[in-house]
């Protein structure tokens, strides 16, 4: 990175954080600290919800997923529109009517204290565990590529987000997220335009799509009914709806965003904004990866995008295996490129048979190239016991090798903006839930507003430090990202089950739902260790188990359950 890149990166990060602190100075009451001043318009809520969900890994890894696996990952978002409509109709009006600070406060009003604490504890457990990753995941990728010190990057970005989140609370998160998302979109749109500009002249839009489609990169929708396939239309629509319903409806980091709206209308429109924009946004990011794939059919790509993996192979390359693999990889790439050029010429001359023959040869050469890449990954795994994680490095390597200075700084700023925006919302939610559901509910019931704000600041800072500590130790576990993602999907279903029973099954009381949730959670653990189904199905199974067990347990306990306490509240 050049000096210009550093000016763009540091200027934008510090500028946005400083503006957030200045705009939200003097937040004193609990209401304004946790909910903002309740004047947030729908567009700002929509952007805030979007920025909270889209972490840096979304923008770093998703183009890599498009490069390696095509568009099929977009199916995971098919559940978003339905889930957000359900939240807008059922969840949001009740949260606002009861004027709760946290989603789990609602469980206390509807059921009892122990169920509220269970919901809050499930949230703190999974979000707290994942907190470090939001900082660690982009830091490890960027420091690997740019050679920065990992620990210093984690500590600096972690402290920056702690300072403005602790200072301004919920409002600071919303205010900064608007500008951070602006940087992210500016960076991604610039990258998209530059990738298109870098494609060879003479390659039309239909040629590009035909080329990508021929290599199976445009297989966006798969109607397979196999539950073992990770991304299908059905797992996305059914499993994805439950996953998104759990995330947007019961995760405090999201609930806090849309509860900061000036009215019910603002919250609803913010959610609908996301319901409309999420699929096209993810599609565009994946398409960017597909375009990078097309670009690399005409330019020699590296054997492994992860530079550390490549270096490792170089250092442990006693038998000259790496040179042989690289030489073969280069040859197959040259063959692929030549055949694609023949295909293009035949296609433009209307020679269909010639085009088909050339493309078949290009596809065969490309497959050979992929086989060589797989061999290199296998050699790496055999030598080091780790995988290359190449998808995470495709986009950032492309940026560094192909884009001009200034744009590199803008895109790295975009990755950090994404990391800070989702981290800030997480810390804000962790601090709020700890204050409202534990401190004020159990420890200091008589705490004044001022004391609660002070406690919330301390808890936010504490969770921030926990996140930094966790990020600093994250390298000890290679599969941590995957583990925490799976952990989230394991807990989300039962958490959603608690809310579904609260909203829709009025005959069930607190004791029944509390024990049902614990049994359902145990069942999910058993299933997870014994089945090989896609993780997208666990939220659905967990939710269904919690609801069914609640009904059965209520029948055993007898009576019509507890009266709906909400009515009395």
């Amino acid at each position, binding site marked *: 990175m050049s000096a210009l890149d550093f000016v763009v990166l540091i200027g934008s990060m510090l500028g946005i954080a400083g503006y957030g602190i200045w705009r939200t100075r003097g937040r004193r009451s609990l209401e304004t600290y946790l909910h903002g001043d309740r004047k947030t318009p729908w567009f700002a809520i929509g952007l805030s919800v979007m920025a909270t969900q889209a972490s840096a890994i979304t923008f770093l890894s998703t183009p890599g997923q498009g490069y390696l696996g095509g568009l099929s990952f977009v199916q995971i978002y098919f559940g978003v529109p339905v889930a957000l*409509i359900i939240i807008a109709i059922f969840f949001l009006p009740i949260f*606002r*009517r009861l*004027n709760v600070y946290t989603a789990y406060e609602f469980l206390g009003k509807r059921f009892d204290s122990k169920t509220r604490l269970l919901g809050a504890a499930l949230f703190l457990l999974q979000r707290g565990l994942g907190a470090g990753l939001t900082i660690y995941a982009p830091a490890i990728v960027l420091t690997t590529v740019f050679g920065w010190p990992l620990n210093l990057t984690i500590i600096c970005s972690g402290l920056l987000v702690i300072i403005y989140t602790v200072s301004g609370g919920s409002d600071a998160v919303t205010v900064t997220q608007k500008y951070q998302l602006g940087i992210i979109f500016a960076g991604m749109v610039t990258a998209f335009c530059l990738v298109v500009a870098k494609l060879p002249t003479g390659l039309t839009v239909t040629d590009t*799509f035909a080329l990508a489609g021929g290599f199976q990169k445009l297989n966006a*929708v798969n109607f397979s009914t196999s539950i073992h396939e990770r991304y299908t239309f059905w797992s996305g629509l059914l499993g994805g709806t439950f996953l998104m319903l759990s995330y947007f409806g019961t995760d405090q980091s999201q609930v806090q965003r849309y509860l900061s709206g000036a009215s*019910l209308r603002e919250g609803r429109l913010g959610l*609908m904004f996301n319901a*409309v924009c999420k699929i096209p946004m993810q599609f565009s990011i994946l398409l960017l990866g597909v375009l990078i794939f097309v670009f690399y059919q005409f330019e020699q790509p590296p054997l492994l995008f992860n530079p550390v993996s490549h270096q490792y192979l170089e250092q442990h390359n006693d038998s000259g295996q790496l040179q042989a693999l690289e030489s073969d990889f280069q040859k197959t790439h040259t063959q692929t490129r030549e055949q694609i050029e023949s295909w293009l010429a035949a296609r433009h001359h209307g020679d269909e048979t010639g085009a088909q023959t050339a493309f078949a040869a290009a596809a065969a050469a490309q497959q050979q190239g992929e086989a060589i890449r797989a061999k290199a990954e296998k050699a790496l795994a055999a030598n080091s016991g780790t995988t290359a994680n190449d998808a995470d490095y495709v986009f950032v390597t492309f940026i560094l090798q192909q884009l001009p200075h200034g744009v590199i700084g803008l895109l790295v700023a975009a990755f950090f903006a994404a990391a800070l925006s989702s981290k800030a919302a997480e810390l804000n939610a962790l601090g709020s839930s700890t204050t409202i559901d534990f401190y004020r509910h159990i420890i200091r019931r008589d705490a004044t507003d001022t004391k*609660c704000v002070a406690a919330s600041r301390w808890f936010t800072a504490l969770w921030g430090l926990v996140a930094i500590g966790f990020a600093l130790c994250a390298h000890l576990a290679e599969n941590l990202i995957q583990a925490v993602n799976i952990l989230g999907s394991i807990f989300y279903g039962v958490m959603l089950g608690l809310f579904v029973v609260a909203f829709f099954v009025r005959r069930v009381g607190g004791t029944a739902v509390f024990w049902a949730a614990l049994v359902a959670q145990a069942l999910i653990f058993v299933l997870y260790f014994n089945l090989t189904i896609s993780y997208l199905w666990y939220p659905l199974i967990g939710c269904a188990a919690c609801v069914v067990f609640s009904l059965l347990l209520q029948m055993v306990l007898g009576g019509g359950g507890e009266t709906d306490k909400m009515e009395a509240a």
Partner: protein
Amino acid sequence: MKRPAETESSSCESEETGLPFFHSWKSVYIFVLGSFVFWVALLVALTKYFS
């Protein structure tokens, strides 16, 4: 500790959306589902046409 008064009415579905063209929440939800169907159809077409 004082809490602000509850302000939302229970008849929230009848509340005005304040949007041009979409005056009821039902029409907003239909638009959202329509855009979802549009994107799925587009992605299916992309899959079928270019594969």
